[in-house]
């Protein structure tokens, strides 16, 4: 009967037979190890930071941008790192508080201090990981006498070629804006065709399935190549006179129409059948039910995945360079080979990234606004 004498113990009713100790009553684990690790890691990161800052200082000399201002910025960076020590020290202090409390058999205080100590240690390690990543990136850029920076970020060349490339980027924007509008319509048509009900709808469903399977599997670059070079060779009336951009729009619409059709289909199928029952029971026809009840709800749900496909489409406009269209990528390649430097291509990369970010935020806002309007609890 030793456990019944334990002042931290207790017994449950013997429903399962035997005695049962109150196991949550055990003292907290020792966290000194975490605290020591935190202090050690923070000191290490601070040393590494000074090492990197010294490398950066050397790089500013090479670039000829050294001076009071550059050095002042570097010193400030060095000072900003120091507060990393603070959570590490807090972690150590709390671990000592916990130890003292435990010695007085004060379990509650010991638990509180242990939890605080552990939290501070985690803060330290989390921030340390982020800083180390930044340091590695910085070292990468200044390594080998600034080789990386010179290869990808030669600022004078980026500056002199920027407008030429931005102008060419309009071609990409034109292609994806037109293609996106067409894809929205075409994808919905394919999706609805795939969901046509009944035995009579089977051939329609099959055609839609075959189309989706084909164009989802076909690499966009091959599709653009075949359509861009092929259709102008066929001599078909009207079609053979399309511009390269129009061929690109056609190819991308066909490819992304297949993806987007599947997104639409998933959205439509995610609407509970009771909505169809409710609409049909009011006398709405199948098409009216789709038009007024199902598709409007489905579209709201698929906006985020739709954005994914649109970003994919936007990036794939860079593939039109295979048919010789002078888009931003092709223009950048021309400049790059003239100067034996890749920095103009970096410009294109940044342009592509920059246009997607506002779209992502816009979609977030759109979804949020919609939910606030329709859901309970918002206002």
């Amino acid at each position: 009967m030793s456990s019944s004498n334990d002042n931290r113990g207790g017994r449950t009713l013997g429903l399962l037979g035997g005695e049962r100790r109150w196991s949550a009553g055990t003292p907290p684990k020792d966290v000194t190890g975490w605290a020591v690790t935190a202090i050690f890691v923070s000191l290490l990161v601070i040393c590494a930071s000074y090492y990197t800052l010294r490398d950066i200082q050397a790089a500013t000399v090479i670039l000829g941008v050294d001076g009071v201002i550059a050095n002042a910025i570097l010193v400030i960076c060095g000072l900003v790192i120091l507060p990393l020590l603070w959570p590490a020290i807090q972690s150590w202090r709390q671990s000592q508080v916990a130890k003292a409390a435990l010695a007085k058999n004060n379990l509650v205080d010991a638990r509180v201090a242990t939890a605080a100590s552990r939290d501070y240690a985690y803060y330290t390690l989390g921030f340390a990981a982020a800083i180390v990543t930044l340091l590695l990136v910085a070292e990468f850029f200044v390594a080998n006498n600034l080789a990386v920076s010179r290869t990808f970020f030669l600022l004078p060349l980026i500056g002199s070629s920027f407008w030429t490339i931005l102008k060419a980027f309009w071609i990409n924007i034109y292609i994806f804006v037109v293609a996106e509008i067409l894809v929205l319509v075409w994808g919905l048509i394919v999706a609805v065709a795939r969901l046509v009900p009944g035995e009579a709808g089977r051939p329609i469903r099959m055609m839609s399935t075959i189309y989706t399977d084909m164009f989802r599997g076909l690499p966009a670059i091959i599709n653009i190549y075949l359509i861009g070079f092929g259709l102008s060779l066929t001599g078909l009336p009207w079609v053979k006179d399309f511009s390269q951009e129009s061929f690109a729009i056609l190819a991308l619409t066909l490819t992304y129409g297949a993806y987007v059709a599947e997104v639409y289909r998933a959205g439509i199928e995610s609407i509970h059948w009771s909505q169809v029952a409710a609409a049909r029971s009011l006398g709405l026809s199948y098409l009216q039910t789709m038009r007024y009840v199902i598709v409007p709800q489905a579209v709201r749900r698929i906006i985020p995945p739709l954005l994914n496909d649109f970003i994919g489409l936007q990036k794939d406009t860079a593939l039109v360079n295979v048919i010789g269209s002078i888009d931003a990528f092709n223009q950048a390649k021309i400049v790059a080979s003239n100067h034996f430097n890749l920095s103009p291509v970096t410009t294109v990369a940044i342009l592509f990234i920059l246009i997607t970010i506002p779209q992502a935020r816009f979609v977030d806002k759109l979804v949020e606004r919609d939910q606030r309007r329709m859901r309970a609890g918002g206002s």
Partner: protein
Amino acid sequence: MAMIEIRDIHKSYGDHKIFTGLSLEVEEHQVVCLIGPSGCGKSTLLRCMNGLESIQGGEIRIHGDRMTGPGVDVNALRRDVGIVFQSFNLFPHMTVLENVTLAPIKVLNEKRSDAEAKAMTLLKRIGLEHKAKEYPDRLSGGQQQRVAIVRALAMGPMVLLLDEITSALDPELVSEVLNIVRDLAAEGMTMLLATHEMGFAREVASKICFLCDGKVHEEGPPAEIFGNPKQERTRAFLQRIIEAGRL
């Protein structure tokens, strides 16, 4: 001739038999309550009556006209036979007013202004005219179900089917919905209710039908079914309801 005649209908899902020769008649202005254990086909019967489900044998006639089998204009049938569901099924992307006016505008080709005026009259009757511009998710369950009833009424149905309309509601919201049904009954609306609200069924029903084993096992006026059921199965079912404190 009865307004609605359900004659010897059969239906099964695979091996699972739902109806094995169910027959039932409903007179105009009658309120018929369907009771019975869950899974006995109360909801399915209502869904068959406005063409949301098909039957495999027998027939349903309304005003003598056969309403089952191929060639029936189900969209027209559903204008005359309205249904309200257990889970309300309001359209979440539309306001209350849009929910109520959608079908009158698109199916009956009413002018928007006329449809909205009619909808507002109906909403005023159930005391929800101030919610006309709200979205359904902002409404309580009882309010949503009242809107669902109004949405069905806006089509001017001749028969109203109510499929366990209070089962998904918190107890304190049940009465606001039942009051509307009570008013409709007093006005002479022909209604079929699948329900577990035995007290309410006893009060409003002209006829109670106990469904069991794919048939109407016993039917009669409420006083007879609740007071003196003839069949052993009916008695056992009602006994369980009483034990659960629901009667």
